[in-house]
């Protein structure tokens, strides 16, 4: 099968406009005859479901949460990018497009990214109209700040709760459609399989997490908006329940999985404090607007800080190494995430870390507080400072934050074409769950932008083009495909429960996380990746032999839910290793130690690897690699430089 991204012809500025003009429409009276399933209620899922409902489709929305509002988009802190140029700092759609392509280290599709930049401005309009209370200036107009990888201020924000406010906006739009009865919301349901009939996505199997019953749901199209798979690392900034299951099971039904090894390690998270640690907490990138990252210049001083004999405030200005400002004078503390993370790791590996484990650097607001005063800093970051203090017991107004990189986002995901349709006709994938737009590294404040562009503006238009070709007939859930898929889910669940071994899901998950972090984390090498595959296989074998799940399947059973997710992470991890092994170059978040410049920067190989790696599931055999070649007509790939 040859991958066809269906990118429209013509100049990049006109592609989306022209494409829309050519898409087939479904007339308003017929829209109500089509059913659409949307799985996930984060920014992408909620915005898509609401918009589809407004158009008149009958929409069924599924979430494993008790309410759509709890989806993990809620936790996004810093902001959302849009090329409004409100600051007159010479921003434009073209510049946002360029920054995103470059930030992604030239591994994203130009046409998709240009469309994203174009739509960014409408997202802000939409959110403001819904009542999203963005930060404003004294004149009553919208305020902006800067994020990594950009030299303009184009990030709109609502204190450190931008994701929450945008999600509540999309959720309110969804609630309106529930009231209008175009959308039905099924809460506490976890999707466990995709049902494919005659080669088309026709429904899903879910488990009701309260009663334990399995349910079959059919539709004319299925939209997955189920987020990223950062929790494969066990410790990440993702919510505890975030998982790969929905897209993984769709992969096993024939949807290609693209660029699985492109994962983002965020530079500013609170360092791990103990073995009991259940997750890591992000400190927003926006903090790098005013915070300065440093470690001591001398190893001895660092050692004394680690032992608690010195504090940050004892270290004089001349003894501090502001290593981002030193290495990247043009962007300073606002280099992209992959660059900042690697630089912090480099310092810590060299013995300059400032927390007892050695894995931590300072993020210091002393100078900003002196310059702007405590009140301004409180207004900008108050909730983040409070969050930090609650977790660590330290006051960042008085002593610098301690931070270290942690897994935050996954650029990889199911492969989709320009219409956001996967390789299974009728299966659409939006938001973080798809692979598009961010290449090998996502820029800060771009995830919210992409999730909402997909959900509000792209999918609701492109899905009509597919539906217009289908008959209206309701799809029966009594078809053999539905029954088989349901049976398979029940069997798998019973199999997991029946193992009755000695290790809990969390123990196995932690072990997996350590393997993935050590070998497929911030830096990778051939030897390690080969070893990782073997370790993952051994652990998978142990999982099926030694897992222990308490209780049964006809009740609320969180251990059972998690076991199913870890089961999939154990398979995904191997695909990540395989992908990282095959990509013999460094790009964005994928850093292969063998491929670096003299000063330790990522070294791409455009000649051999300028493509999207999309994997086709082949059962017990190795997955088949399909390549979608990337063509750069507007931005010429160069060695990325932030110096």
């Amino acid at each position: 099968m040859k991958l066809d991204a269906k990118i429209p012809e013509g100049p990049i500025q006109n592609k989306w406009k022209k494409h829309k003009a050519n898409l087939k429409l479904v007339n308003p009276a017929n829209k109500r005859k089509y059913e659409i399933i949307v799985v996930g209620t984060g920014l992408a899922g909620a915005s898509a479901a609401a918009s589809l409902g407004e158009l008149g489709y009958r929409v069924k929305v599924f979430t494993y949460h008790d309410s759509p509002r709890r989806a993990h988009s809620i936790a996004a802190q810093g902001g959302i990018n849009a090329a409004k140029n409100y600051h007159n700092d010479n921003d434009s759609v073209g510049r946002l497009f360029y920054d995103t392509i470059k930030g992604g280290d030239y591994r994203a599709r130009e046409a998709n990214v240009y469309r994203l930049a174009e739509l960014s401005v409408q997202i802000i309009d939409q959110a403001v109209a819904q009542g999203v209370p963005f930060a404003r200036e004294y004149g009553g107009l919208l305020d902006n700040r800067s994020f990594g990888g950009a030299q303009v201020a184009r990030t709109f924000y609502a204190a450190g709760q931008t994701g929450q406010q945008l999600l509540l906006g999309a959720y309110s739009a969804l609630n309106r459609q529930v009231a209008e009865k175009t959308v039905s919301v099924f809460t506490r349901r976890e999707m466990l399989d995709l049902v494919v009939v005659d080669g088309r996505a026709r429904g899903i199997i879910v488990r009701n997490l309260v009663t334990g019953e399995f349910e079959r749901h059919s539709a004319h199209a299925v939209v997955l908006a189920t987020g990223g798979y950062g929790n494969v690392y066990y410790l990440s900034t993702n919510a505890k329940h975030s998982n790969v299951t929905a897209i993984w099971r769709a992969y096993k039904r024939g949807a290609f999985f693209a660029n699985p090894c492109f994962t983002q390690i965020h530079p500013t998270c609170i360092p791990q404090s103990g073995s009991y640690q259940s997750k890591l907490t992000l400190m927003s990138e926006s903090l790098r607007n005013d915070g300065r990252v440093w470690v001591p210049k001398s190893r001895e001083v660092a050692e004394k800080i680690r032992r608690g004999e010195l504090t940050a405030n004892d270290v004089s200005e001349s003894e501090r190494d502001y290593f981002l400002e030193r290495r990247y004078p043009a962007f300073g503390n606002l280099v992209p995430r992959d660059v900042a993370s690697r630089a912090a790791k480099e310092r810590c590996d060299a013995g300059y870390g400032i927390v007892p484990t050695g894995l931590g650097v300072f993020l210091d607001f002393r100078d900003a507080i002196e310059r702007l005063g405590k009140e301004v800093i409180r207004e900008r970051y108050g909730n983040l400072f409070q969050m930090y203090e609650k977790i660590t017991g330290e006051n960042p107004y008085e002593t610098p934050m301690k931070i270290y990189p942690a897994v935050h986002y996954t650029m990889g995901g199911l492969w989709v074409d320009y219409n956001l349709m996967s390789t299974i006709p009728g299966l659409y994938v939006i938001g973080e769950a798809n692979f598009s737009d961010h290449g090998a590294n996502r820029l800060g404040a771009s995830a919210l932008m992409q999730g909402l562009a997909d959900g509000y503006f792209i999918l609701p238009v492109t899905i009509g083009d597919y539906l217009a070709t289908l008959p209206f007939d309701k799809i029966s859930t009594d078809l053999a495909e539905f029954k088989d898929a349901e049976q398979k889910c029940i069997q798998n669940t019973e199999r997991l429960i029946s193992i009755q071994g000695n290790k809990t899901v969390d123990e196995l998950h932690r072990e997996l996380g350590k393997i993935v972090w050590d070998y497929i984390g911030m830096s990778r090498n051939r030897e390690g990746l080969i070893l990782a595959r073997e370790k993952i296989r051994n652990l998978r074998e142990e999982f099926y032999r030694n897992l222990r799940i308490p209780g049964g399947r006809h009740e609320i059973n969180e251990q059972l839910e998690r076991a199913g997710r870890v089961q999939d992470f154990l398979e995904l991890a191997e695909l990540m290793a395989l992908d990282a092994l095959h990509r013999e170059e460094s790009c964005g978040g994928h850093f292969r130690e063998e491929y670096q410049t003299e000063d330790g920067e990522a070294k791409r190989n455009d000649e051999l690897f300028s493509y999207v790696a999309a994997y086709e599931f082949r059962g017990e055999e190795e997955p088949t690699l399909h390549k979608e070649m990337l063509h750069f007509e507007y931005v010429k790939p160069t060695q990325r430089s932030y110096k």
Partner: protein
Amino acid sequence: MKVHLKIWRQKNQQEKGHFETYTVDEVNEHMSFLELLDVLNERLIKEGKDPVAFSHDCREGICGSCGMVINGRPHGPDSLIATCQLHMRQFRDGDTIVVEPFRAKAFPVLKDLVVDRSALDRILQAGGYITVNTGSAPEANSIPIPKKIAEEAFSAATCIGCGACVAACKNSSAMLFVAAKVSHLALLPQGQAERTERVKKMVKAMDKEGFGACSNTGACEAECPKGISLRHIARMNREYLRATFIAE
């Protein structure tokens, strides 16, 4: 340090619950309270017992999933936090900690510490939105909103929908939750068109779900993880009064 946990156990919605006591050694002060429950649950699973069911997800105080009453206080003995942000440094060696689900008629217990808060969703579905279709929005800066007003709206909009206000209130009133949304939207120019109908519909939905009347004690504000102010309840009361005098 070592703590004793007296935890509410209830198999399902139908069965009557009871307290059980567990002792956890090797508690680290940097541990979060939910991590303490994780440690307890790992042990219970190994012992062949049923782990304690509780709601949680983001574990950074924003998703609103977690919520339990700890030593008589929703989200426990610290202010401006959700349960997931409660750390063991708030307790002392040898403490007995009583853990119960949020209790309210409108929040039936599903299992142990897990309650059904879908009533809150239904109130918002009744009118907690501004009617604007995707694609029909005007240019964002065409409606200036004074900074102070925007900030006041934001202070209400930060509600995480956890339900602590209901659990804290002796009447199990959802006034602070409902007021946060009514106030957020009533303050903004975008919310004016539906201002009158919205408050009527939402208050009606609130009453229908079986939440009690405002107790005027301010317990909700004291326990709210986002510090949402009683001002918003006052504003909702004015909005409601205003709405009753306007015929539409």
